């Protein structure tokens, strides 16, 4: 029984790090644009397919493919903003319009991926399946260690970037108050582009990492998006440490929850937690209570 617990804990941390990456990217974008960018989920899917193309079709090595796929995901994010959201901003569109547009982008790109790659399941894993390492009674594979390490490194990089660099500080300034940022000389459009690049690269990274672990399919983005948003909300919408906390919390709750109840209830656990938070603590773990958020 102890082994089961340890194994679930390992699974929880792996799932949590993927959720945290998606939630982080979502949060980085949300902070500057203040609407829910649902197409974030399809950027995650695209990240996986970029990695598939580079590794399987072009035979590039893993590390290079990882890096290039993140860059491509960032470019995709910037393109979504430039060709969909930017024209809407010029017309002072309401948040509802942005929300609908982001759904539209999601569906369009998901179908585009399906058109190009087909609806069937694809896999990047080529070599024989190696047995994982035994660790405190649990089994952890090389790929899982890679997922955990890569996510943690990305989180640390993001944190240093936001806290220490001039560009990161400017992004924080825009998140705090876009008008005040504008009057001190920060180009708001530039910060929005930057946040789409960084946020999308993080979603892409999550997609790439998951593609090393499981099969990929065009519809994989939707549930990942929902989990990412749930993590962002329970962590405190707009809070960067909150997104990480929410991601790991959700991973733990889901995986430890199925210790006692059937695994089919995993998604149900996630949504139950969301509903509990929305009732009791809608500003999440680290969000600010006073902020009135609109979707």
């Amino acid at each position, binding site marked *: 029984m102890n082994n089961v617990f340890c194994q679930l804990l390992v699974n929880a941390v792996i799932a949590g790090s993927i959720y945290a990456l998606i939630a982080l990217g979502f949060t980085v974008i949300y902070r500057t644009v203040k609407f829910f960018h649902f197409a974030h989920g399809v950027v995650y899917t695209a990240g996986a397919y970029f990695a598939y193309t580079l590794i399987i079709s072009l035979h590039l090595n893993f590390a290079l493919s990882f890096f290039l796929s993140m860059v491509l995901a960032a470019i995709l994010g910037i393109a979504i903003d430039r060709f969909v959201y930017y024209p809407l901003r010029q017309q002072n569109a309401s948040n509802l319009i942005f929300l609908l547009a982001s759904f539209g982008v999601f569906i369009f790109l998901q179908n585009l991926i399906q058109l190009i790659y087909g609806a069937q399941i694809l896999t990047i894993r080529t070599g024989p399946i190696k047995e994982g390492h035994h660790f405190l009674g649990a089994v952890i594979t090389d790929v899982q260690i890679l997922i955990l390490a890569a996510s943690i490194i990305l989180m640390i990089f993001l944190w240093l970037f936001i806290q220490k660099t*001039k560009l990161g500080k*400017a992004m924080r300034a825009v998140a*705090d*108050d876009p008008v*005040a*940022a*504008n*009057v001190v000389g920060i*180009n708001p459009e530039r910060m929005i582009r930057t946040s789409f690049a960084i946020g999308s690269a993080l979603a892409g990274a999550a997609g790439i990492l998951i593609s090393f672990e499981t099969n990929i399919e065009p519809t994989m983005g939707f549930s990942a998006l929902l989990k990412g948003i749930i993590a962002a909300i329970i962590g405190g919408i707009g809070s960067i440490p909150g997104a990480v906390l929410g991601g790991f919390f959700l991973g733990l709750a889901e995986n430890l929850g199925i210790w006692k109840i059937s695994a089919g209830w995993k998604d149900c656990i996630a949504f139950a937690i969301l509903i509990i938070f929305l009732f009791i603590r809608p500003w999440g773990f680290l969000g600010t209570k006073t902020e009135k958020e609109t979707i």
Partner: protein
Amino acid sequence: MLLEVKNLTVYYDAVLALENISLTVSGGEIVAMIGPNGAGKSTALKAICGLLKPQSGDVLFQGENINGKQPYQLVEKGLCLVPEGRRVFTSMTVLENLEMGAYTVTSGQWSVVSRKNRQPKVDIRQLVEKIFSLFPVLNKRQKQKAGTLSSGEQQMVAIGRALMLKPKLLLLDEPSLGFSPNYVDTVFEKIKEINRGGTTILLVEQNARMALEYADRGYVFEIGKIAFEDKAKNLLENDEVRKSFLGER
């Protein structure tokens, strides 16, 4: 002429907010825009610095047409706005807020700011010290998050942030808002001090009498138009202005 506004017309959605107004500000002046709520003085200020797009008209800063430029493009030219309502970066410290005021002159985007052993293009510390000597209370609060300050202190941060690069023209939108009534005098003393330091000031103020006492010239706004313009002293003595706009009987 430092600032020249010619025939500015601004619509808020479909509502006419400013109709064909013209005004000028010369170097070294303090110019006050007063008038009742909704008269369009704040709108004028926002249209000048580019936060609002005017329907027609021209804004010239140092002879250069700045129509259609956004506020962030004007900072380097020496035109800074302190927006209404203490808009500070609440999650950043007072010091970081002031540093952001020097955003346009600090070194590269990826560089690490505010580390002591670095040599930036400008000496931020020296600029910050000047702001602290103007508002000593901020010195004591420099490590505190700006969101935790009192409203008056937040306004000082907002003004200090705009002064970091010593703008040629400072636009102040309701500078006394948020200060307790007996501190309003001090705020205007500070504005006078900033002006003596070589910064021209154009301000919008609810507290009309106080503004005119400190200003060189004034424009009185009434429903989207300028009703009076004169030396501040003359406006204070003008019976009609006193009756309609300064609340005297």
